[in-house]
């Protein structure tokens, strides 16, 4: 009995506030926009009984999905979200790997402090960390002032409100997610392997490629998924740092809902976004599972 209650409480909570809302999103994505409250049709009227239910289901259709494929804005936004996610994942890896490497090879008594320095930004407000870059990248911002002062450039660079600013913002905010798993896999590594490789005539660089890189592969994969998956649906970074040409699907969904008040289309956008995310999420889960089995 007690066990039953223990399972039931969190189960019902998640059903009611996680699963049911998704069913509603799917249902509304099959409805049509209407000038009413709520702004879609049909609405289910249980008072009409069976006849109401039948006519309700008859009116549902896939029109919004057809609309998504016809209007270039949407599939361009999906593609450009994927592209931005891929590029920024690669950039985060390039920036994060040397940091994780340096941490794992630092003197042992330094490591807890270095680890804390990586985790600290993670506890700091995401919004504030993105906002910090607005003042740096703006036309009269700190970076331009500095570069003009040193004489590297003579005209201020336009960085804010471009895709470049979005990449910088993503790399900056998601960097801890990349560093931590790579650090974990590098720290576990047995360093005598490197000595062995060098004894056997490897140069340091080829020892890195042949020994260290393969051994840190799991960390790289985990870190890349942890950056890639949330970036696709990112909203705050493209809105604050991106420009009018930065298309990301999270922003499209937000605008569709809040600016256009087209709930059915916003719901359809959400459903497709979910379908796109399912593939990397399943790959990630499977990878984690494999790793757990390899360790256990």
């Amino acid at each position, binding site marked *: 009995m007690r*066990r039953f209650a*223990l*399972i039931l*409480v*969190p*189960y019902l*909570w*998640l*059903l009611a*506030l*996680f699963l049911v*809302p998704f069913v*509603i*999103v799917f249902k*509304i994505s099959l409805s049509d926009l209407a000038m009413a409250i709520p702004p879609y049709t049909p609405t289910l009227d249980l008072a009409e009984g069976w006849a109401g239910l039948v006519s309700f289901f008859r009116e549902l259709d896939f029109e919004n999905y057809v609309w998504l494929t016809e209007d270039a804005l949407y599939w361009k936004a999906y593609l450009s979200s994927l592209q931005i996610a891929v590029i920024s994942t690669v950039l985060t890896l390039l*920036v994060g790997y*040397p*940091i994780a*490497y*340096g941490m794992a090879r*630092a*003197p042992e008594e330094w490591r807890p402090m*270095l680890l*804390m*320095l990586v*985790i*600290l*930004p993670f*506890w*700091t*407000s*995401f*919004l*504030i960390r993105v*906002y*910090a*870059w*607005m*003042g*740096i990248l*703006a036309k*009269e*911002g*700190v970076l331009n*002032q500095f570069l003009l002062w040193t004489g590297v450039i003579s005209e201020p660079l336009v960085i804010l409100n471009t895709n470049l600013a979005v990449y910088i913002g993503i790399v*900056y905010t998601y960097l801890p997610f990349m560093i931590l798993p790579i650090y974990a896999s590098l720290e576990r590594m047995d360093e005598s392997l490197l000595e062995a490789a060098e004894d056997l005539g490897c140069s340091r660089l080829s020892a890195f490629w042949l020994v260290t890189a393969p051994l840190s592969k799991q960390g790289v994969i985990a870190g890349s998924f942890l950056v890639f*998956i*949330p970036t696709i*649906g990112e*909203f705050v970074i493209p809105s604050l740092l991106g420009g009018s040409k930065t298309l990301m699907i*999270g922003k499209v*969904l*937000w605008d569709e*809902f809040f600016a256009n008040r087209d709930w059915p289309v916003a*719901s359809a956008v*959400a459903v497709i*976004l979910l379908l796109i*995310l399912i593939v990397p*999420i399943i790959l*990630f889960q499977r990878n984690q599972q494999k790793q757990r089995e390899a360790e256990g």
Partner: protein
Amino acid sequence: MRRFSWFNATSLTLGFAFLYVPMIILIVYSFNKSKLVTVWAGFSTHWYGELLSNQSMLDAAWVTVKVAVISSSIATVLGTMAAYVIVRAGRFHGRTLFSGMIYAPLVMPEVITGLSLLLLFIGLNVDRGVMTIVLAHTTFSMCYVSVVVSSRLVSFDQSLEEAALDLGCSPLQAFRLVTLPIIAPAVISGWLLAFTLSLDDLVIASFTSGPAATTLPMKIWSSVRLGVSPEINALSTIMIALVTVGVISASLVNKRQAVRQKREEQAAERQS
């Protein structure tokens, strides 16, 4: 003793500069006298005064803290229960669905979570405000709590609990006297994580709140969309300072606890 190699020292210096210089710049400019955030006009704490006399900002801060405390507390209870179910309950009908619902919110884009909860609240005709934000935050943060707590439960020696039961404890007593003290560090970090996630959330709160409730991130959002503002710099500085103090003191407490535990273990060994 190990030393830093030249390469590692460089990559660490550059890396941490990248992580910290933006925040330092933000902090420095919060003490700028000028309203123009790009021109340095001398030291001043003017914007802090402005911030503290901004009633709507203070109201938003209060709403945020209220939401964060309530939602993270409920989420800690639910998340610990869920962790128990995942680690201990064995097989039951719908187990796959259950663990799916625990892990899915961790990777779900916030725009989708927010949209779906809003549509639920509208469908149920619930008045949106503090309560609906609490429900939304509890739902996603309980999943984080359960991940943190279950990783601790997995490594927990179950025979301790069985011993307590053999010695006449009721299951609830065994949980309170044996299990809870052992998993407490994980439960506390789960609560802290849930609390910060709630403090930080903009997107889900924007979807699920009504005109009556504005959280601090929503307030920050509406003002920074128009550009950089010195008042927000001041607010950010306060928040960064609070987080820094919190994280450092938490790690000091942890360290001291680890040392004490080690000493107790050594003492126990000597006695036996």
